[in-house]
């Protein structure tokens, strides 16, 4: 395209300075602002569509004769009376609530009280059934709140204990579940989630569909596929991901049986891929083969062997496909790794690295691939490999945004390494100095505050808590910061 010469346009120094100032001041939206904006957009689209349908009905109504309108009014009265009778009959064992025109729910075994809290009446837990087929059940003793129900979907919080969900897939409803400091985003799936505030342990067992988990440990959204279980132990900074039988044994309705399985504790900083055929006892034996203190560098062979067994057991799928040959190009490789990350198939990435060699991969991978590799290694607890990938990211792409992310993630890697907390603090310091308002600034400051408390006591951590509350009053670590401020 021919560029038109517009150099003759005179710009005064004052105008130039003002426009420079504006360009400098207007910053792109943060991730939180974008997410909030998207939520508002979905609501607006829903409302617009609903309004459009109502307008359509209204326009049709204007052509009706008054006699027809009278007949319809009588009919509506009869229907309303019938509905009222039904509601009255329902009250006692359950209640019916319509918060929005598209989404309504009934409660069994309890009621919704002020603040959206779900109060249990008996010992069987509370069950909510939505008119579009979704169900959720708070297990006995669990504590939860219904935060919002509207045309765009529903949001619920599990504050303590276990809850099961069966969400009907829908393009129009978005379901969000706050679980302690984690947020689970779901479109249509069956899963069980639990949170123990005392031990700060989060667990999610996904039996069908997909969910995204965000929170203080995952370093970004962690996407899970059917059959995976993630256990996060916050005090130990451990994330354990295992394979389950997926839909096998999944029932249509959430039951208390899920609770027993979900209560399996994390046993150490190892990730174990469990074959569908194996029992839980076998899984524990397999875990015991990998001592938690084993240096990460010594685990690849064991991990790879496990992956091969899993591929053989499954017979097909991405894992077996990955060992069929080398990628034809870097673009293919990147695409395959993207798919592997999206599907939670981290072993596939690690298999590729093992085949091509660590040194060659670190020297030739793109910045995106290096981050994918680092994440795969982190999720599989191969911290040495994760550290190398992140260091290569910083070394080879020093001015990229991912190099900044790598700085923060190096802190997470060091935290997960024995004796690495002081090093982690230094990485967080480095990140905060380079990107004081970066994507992970809140997390970096929160983690630094937590580590300072553990390493040097509350008195040293308190200034960080104060800073955190000032900068991120609604952040993930605000509760910890407030607790630190109150500590003697």
């Amino acid at each position, binding site marked *: 395209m021919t560029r038109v010469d517009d150099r003759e346009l*005179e710009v005064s120094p004052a105008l130039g300075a003002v426009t420079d100032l504006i360009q400098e001041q207007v910053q792109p939206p943060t991730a*939180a602002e974008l997410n909030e904006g998207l939520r508002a*957009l979905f609501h607006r689209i829903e409302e617009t569509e609903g309004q459009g349908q109502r307008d359509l009905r209204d326009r049709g109504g204007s052509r009706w004769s008054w006699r027809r309108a009278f007949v319809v009014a009588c009919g509506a009265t009869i229907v309303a009376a019938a509905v009222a009778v039904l509601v009255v009959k329902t009250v006692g064992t359950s209640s019916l609530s319509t918060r929005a025109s598209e989404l309504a729910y009934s409660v069994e075994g309890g009621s919704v009280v002020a603040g959206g809290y779900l109060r249990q009446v008996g010992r069987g837990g509370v069950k909510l059934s939505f008119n579009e087929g979704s169900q959720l059940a708070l297990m006995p003793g669990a504590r939860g709140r219904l935060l919002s129900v509207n045309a765009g979907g529903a949001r619920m919080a599990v504050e303590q204990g276990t809850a099961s969900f069966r969400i009907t897939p829908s393009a129009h409803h978005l379901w969000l579940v706050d679980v302690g400091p984690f947020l689970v*985003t779901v479109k249509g799936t069956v899963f069980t989630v639990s949170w123990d505030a005392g031990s700060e342990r989060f667990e999610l067992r996904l039996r069908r569909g997909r969910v995204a988990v965000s929170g203080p440990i995952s370093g970004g959204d962690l996407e899970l596929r059917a059959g995976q279980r993630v256990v996060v132990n916050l005090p130990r900074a451990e994330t354990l991901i295992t394979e389950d039988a997926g839909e096998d044994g999944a029932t249509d309705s959430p039951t208390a049986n899920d609770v027993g399985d979900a209560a399996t504790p994390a046993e150490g900083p190892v990730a174990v891929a469990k074959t569908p055929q194996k029992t839980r006892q076998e899984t524990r034996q397999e875990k015991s083969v990998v001592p938690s203190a084993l240096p990460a560098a010594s685990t690849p062979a064991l991990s790879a062997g496990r992956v091969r067994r899993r591929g053989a057991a499954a017979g097909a799928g991405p894992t077996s496909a990955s060992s069929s040959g080398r990628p034809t190009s870097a673009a293919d490789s990147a695409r395959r790794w993207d798919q592997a990350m*999206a599907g939670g198939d981290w072993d596939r990435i690690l298999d590729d690295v093992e085949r091509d060699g660590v040194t060659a991969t670190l020297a030739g991978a793109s910045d995106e691939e290096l981050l994918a590799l680092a994440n795969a290694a982190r999720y599989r607890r191969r911290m040495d490999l994760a550290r190398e990938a992140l260091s290569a990211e910083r070394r080879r792409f020093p001015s990229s945004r991912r190099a900044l992310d790598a700085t923060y993630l190096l802190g997470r890697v060091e935290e997960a390494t024995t004796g690495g907390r002081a090093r982690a603090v230094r990485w967080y310091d480095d990140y905060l100095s380079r990107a004081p308002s970066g994507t992970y600034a809140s997390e970096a400051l929160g983690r630094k505050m937590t580590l300072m408390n553990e390493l040097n006591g509350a008195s040293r951590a308190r200034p960080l808590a104060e800073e955190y509350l000032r900068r991120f009053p609604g952040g993930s670590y605000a509760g910890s910061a407030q*607790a630190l401020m109150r500590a003697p």
Partner: protein
Amino acid sequence: MPLPRSDIPLTLAVTASHRHVSDADVGRGLIAGQSWAIAETWHRFAPMVLTTAERALGSRAEAQDVAQEVFCRLYRKARTLREPESLRSFVFSFAIRVLKSELRSRKTRGWLSFHRPEALLDVGSDTLDVESRDLLRRFYARLDRLSPEDRLVFALRHLESMTVEEIGAALELSTSTVKRRLAHGTARISRMLESEVGLAGRLPTRGGGTT
């Protein structure tokens, strides 16, 4: 130390796989009315729309309203997208149309009421000192005196650094019209700024007087 439950910022599910699909695939998803495509379009292009609108209007809050309107219209009119690979241009053309409409209605509101639009300025209000903020407020007050078309041309050239032909394509104007409007708007704003007492000395000037 136990971590009490905290209010995590809302995160919507845009799966990692969708974040790596091409614009054309997102466009096709949008045409098909798939919700992931709406979310993905938002995540890809909302920053562009928001920053352009904020610079043009001088208000972050109004920019957010504009962005909502842009993407809502986009959703409704997605079926008119004939070339999915041109999704970015498609979004930008919607943004320009909505911005123009917003500037026109703002002008109308200014005539019909005592409301002064510049009072809504909130660009960089958290970080700027009082004097700079006041300066920007006066700058946007001057911009409000331009016609919506002149203002848009001015903003796209000086705040978005677009070329004359790019502006012409975006606003469906000939290059000569763009240049005429640009010269008019630039001269007026420059004169107004220079006439402000002490203004030139208040800001660091950038080198060169031409673009």
